[in-house]
């Protein structure tokens, strides 16, 4: 096999709606509300004559928070620009955005290269800028040719655009970047990141660097991919596009110099990308500074206040879970990848039981399995972190076997189904009933009896066939209910060897 004949070059533009109470330049509610069109509007977001925008400082601070979490540089001066184009969902015929002086630039986001915690890849962030979202054109989907409408509920919603450098090298890497980005945005609580409701959107710029036989490289035309409404679709669309561009290049030999950037949409039903007609000829947005808005001037201390308000980022948390709680990179990623709710649950369990490894096993196996089955959120999960932590504390203090703990857990789940309140005291009682027997006298007697009844097995053990203790263990366990199997096994072997 020769080395791959091309390198995939991917840059992503992530748009995320910020979780504010009100819109970016007016006091209308910032809520997803497609069933009641045009109810969250006012003269400002309708673009009525004479209305003027006023910046929502909270939205700006959330953007600042995000940019700081993405390790961006924050200039002390930023301004607003008008991006001008005509479309019915854009009532002012311009979008207030940021052109040449965005509020942040030159950051990075680290992603792990595979699920087993391979080397970390640093993906550079070109810039993040704040802008207002457009409304939505609503067309008659019945095919009866009814009138089209415009819903301006979304108009003016704060939208953060995060542009990466073309640093991503495969579709799966692009997906991991998006997952990492989503996790970050959720942890710092700036967005709901709901792709179905459009609060997280992604466009991808994709092309190939073809490695020619003479050692030179040829770049194919850049394609901007749109309409991808899930991370899986992003991955599939890029994979498709890579193959398409490669065969296109083999057929036509067209390079980046032969074509300006084109837009292709993703058809999820047919799993293909297709050439998209542009809204109109929008190559020139005639950007210019918005004279209705004063520039934003920031001091270092204002930036510092936001920096200090930043919660622990997922990357830092992951490191801490490894060093502090002894988790593997993989386990830490699984927990954190589940979002802030599960992560907080996990941390509370660790705090209560004192052992990260036991906690992570229980949370990733039992809790996540049950949560997925019930399709409910961790906040509604009946076995709260208090209860699980109490239960696991019995294991970490070696008073309860894992098996007995699972019994207790099963009983708790059953009680939850019937709607019974479960208290920490209930967990204590159930666990105490199964407490490991520490009365070594009874245990020793049972072991001695077992040894006496199986001289054949005793010989085997003496010659090194340690698995021969199995039947004797069974006898002892039957006799002494709360015994710890590990302890029984060790005692059996040592008593046989001493005999």
């Amino acid at each position, binding site marked *: 096999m020769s080395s791959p004949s091309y390198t995939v070059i991917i840059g992503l533009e992530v748009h995320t709606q910020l979780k504010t109470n009100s819109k970016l330049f007016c006091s209308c509610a910032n809520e997803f509300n497609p069933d009641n069109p045009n109810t969250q509007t006012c003269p400002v977001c309708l673009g009525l004559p004479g209305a003027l925008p006023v910046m929502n400082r909270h939205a700006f601070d959330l953007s600042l928070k995000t940019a700081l979490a993405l390790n961006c540089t924050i200039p002390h001066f930023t301004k607003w620009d008008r991006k001008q184009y*005509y479309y019915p969902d854009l009532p002012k015929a311009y979008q207030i955005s940021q052109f040449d002086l965005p509020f942040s630039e030159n950051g990075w986001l680290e992603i792990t290269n595979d699920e087993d915690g391979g080397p970390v890849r640093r993906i550079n962030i070109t810039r993040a800028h704040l802008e207002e979202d457009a409304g939505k054109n609503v067309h008659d989907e019945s095919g009866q040719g009814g009138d089209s409408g415009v819903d301006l509920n979304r108009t003016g919603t704060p939208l953060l655009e995060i542009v990466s450098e073309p640093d991503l090298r495969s579709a799966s890497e692009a997906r991991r970047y998006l997952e990492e980005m989503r996790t970050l945005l959720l942890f710092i609580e700036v967005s709901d990141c709901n792709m179905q409701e459009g609060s997280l959107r992604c466009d991808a710029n994709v092309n190939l660097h073809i490695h020619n036989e003479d050692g030179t490289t040829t770049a194919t035309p850049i394609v901007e991919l749109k309409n991808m409404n899930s991370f899986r679709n992003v991955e599939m669309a890029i994979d498709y596009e890579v193959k398409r561009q490669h065969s296109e290049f083999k057929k036509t030999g067209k390079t980046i110099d032969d074509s300006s950037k084109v837009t292709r949409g993703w058809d999820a039903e047919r799993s293909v990308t297709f050439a998209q007609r542009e809204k109109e000829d929008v*190559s020139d947005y005639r950007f210019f500074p918005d004279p209705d808005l004063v520039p934003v001037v920031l001091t270092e201390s204002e930036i510092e206040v936001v920096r200090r308000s930043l919660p622990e980022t997922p990357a830092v948390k992951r490191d801490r879970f490894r060093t502090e709680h002894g988790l593997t990179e993989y386990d830490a990623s699984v927990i954190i990848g589940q979002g802030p709710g599960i992560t907080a649950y996990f941390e509370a369990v660790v705090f209560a039981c004192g052992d990260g490894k036991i906690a992570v096993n229980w949370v990733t196996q039992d809790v996540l399995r049950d949560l997925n089955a019930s399709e409910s959120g961790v906040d509604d999960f009946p076995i709260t972190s208090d209860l699980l932590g109490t239960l696991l504390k019995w294991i970490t203090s070696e008073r309860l076997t894992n098996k007995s703990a699972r019994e207790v857990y099963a009983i708790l789940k059953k009680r939850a189904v019937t709607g019974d309140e479960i208290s920490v005291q209930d967990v204590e009682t159930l666990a105490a009933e199964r407490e490991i027997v520490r009365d070594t006298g009874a245990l020793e007697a049972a072991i001695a009896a077992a040894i006496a009844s199986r001289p054949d097995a005793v010989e085997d053990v003496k010659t090194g066939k340690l698995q021969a203790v199995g039947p004797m263990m069974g006898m002892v366990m039957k006799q002494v209910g709360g015994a710890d199997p590990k302890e029984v096994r060790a005692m059996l072997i040592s008593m046989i060897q001493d005999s």
Partner: protein
Amino acid sequence: MPELYEQSTESLLSALNAGDLSSRTLTTACLDRIDQLNKKLNAFVSVNADAALAKADAVDKRRATGQTIGLLQGLPVGVKDNICQAGVATTCGSRMLHNYCPPYDAHVVEQLNAEDGVIVGQLNMDEFAMGSSTETSASGVTRNPWNPEHSPGGSSGGAAAAVAAGMVPLALGSDTGGSIRQPASFCGVVGMKPTYGRVSRFGLVAFASSLDQIGPFARDVHGAALLLQVISGHDTRDTTSVDSVVANYTGQFNQSLEGLRIGIVDEHYGEGLDDEVEAAVRRGIERLESAGATVKSVKLPHARYSVATYYLIAPSEASSNLARYDGIHYGHRTEDFNSRNDGLIDLYCRSRGEGFGAEVKRRIMLGTYALSAGYYDAYYLKALKVRRRIREDFDKAFAEVDIIAGPVAPTAAFRIGEKMNDPLAMYLSDIYTISANLAGIPGISVPCGLTTNGLPIGLQLQASTFSETTLLQAAAMAETSGDTIGVCPVA
């Protein structure tokens, strides 16, 4: 006893205050005057007599029962047709907005209502305030009360004409490049453009956002000061509105001009300035000097670029501000549209093509061109740089003088139709006023004489930013020490 429409603001206020005059009587007199003259002058595009009388009665009632009355005490006020009033057609003199009623009040309208002004109606203007003659309005031409063959100036020609003809004692206009001061000069009334940021633009339909400012028209400086007082102040809904103390403007007149430094600009007296205008302006300045001011020359070296700078910045902003009038959401939409054959772009083009007049289209095209990729740096960006220089010139000048005095316009009111086909000549009629907008400084036009043909001439006074108090004091002195131009004959 002079007619009500001839009386000074002060005498009307004291009569109202003393109970010798009711707001209803005064409002009725204004409505009668409008009835009598508006057909001829076309100053008002709409009059709301019922609302005005109801407000007047409410003020009178409160006065009769000894309750507090706002600063305007029931004085009637006209409002330029680009200032939004909830439920009142606000057309900006354009076919594009012929059916448009805003759902909200402009900041200045709220202030007028709160301070007991009686809003009588909406005043004619050049379409979207683009013009210097009030000839481009979809509601027809406004005529100058001093001579109806002549233009009242523009774009706030309706406001200037209404005050000059005694239809209202006070009016609000807007000034983007001279649109208050030039018509005030043409119509022999006082008109003032405040410092940019002094008055909230919230509810003023934007022409060029970085230049637009609402300001007062009145028969006298006292009236202008009073109205400015009412509309000034910080408004959080306009981020360019400045949180700066608003002085009691009317309480500071009759102060000596001793020590006031007045600057004159040699470049003002060059080519294009009418001899009679020059003579009247020079006489006006001499009178300020004899009242105690000192006069010296100042330099504004970049002032000669102001027209070129203005005609890049203002149309650029306008092309963006007026893009929203697309026939989709409100305003004029073409009838000539068939969704089977026509595309969205046809709807846009036809609606805008039908809705806008020639001058508005000209400026939209100028601005669109100046902001286009490849031209932006050479035009818009360069204009911003020159604008900074013009501002710096004023900063330097105002380090040496308190007031800059000069002409408002190169000529007295020109004839209707005279400049309609010569846009450049029309643009030059703002040559002395637009630098104040570019620099953001306040300026005022005060009558200073009549031409031999009996047309008013204005003296322009300008001051540094937020020096309205000094500006009004000087204007009041220019007014009391000047030749009275007499009452407008309403020929």
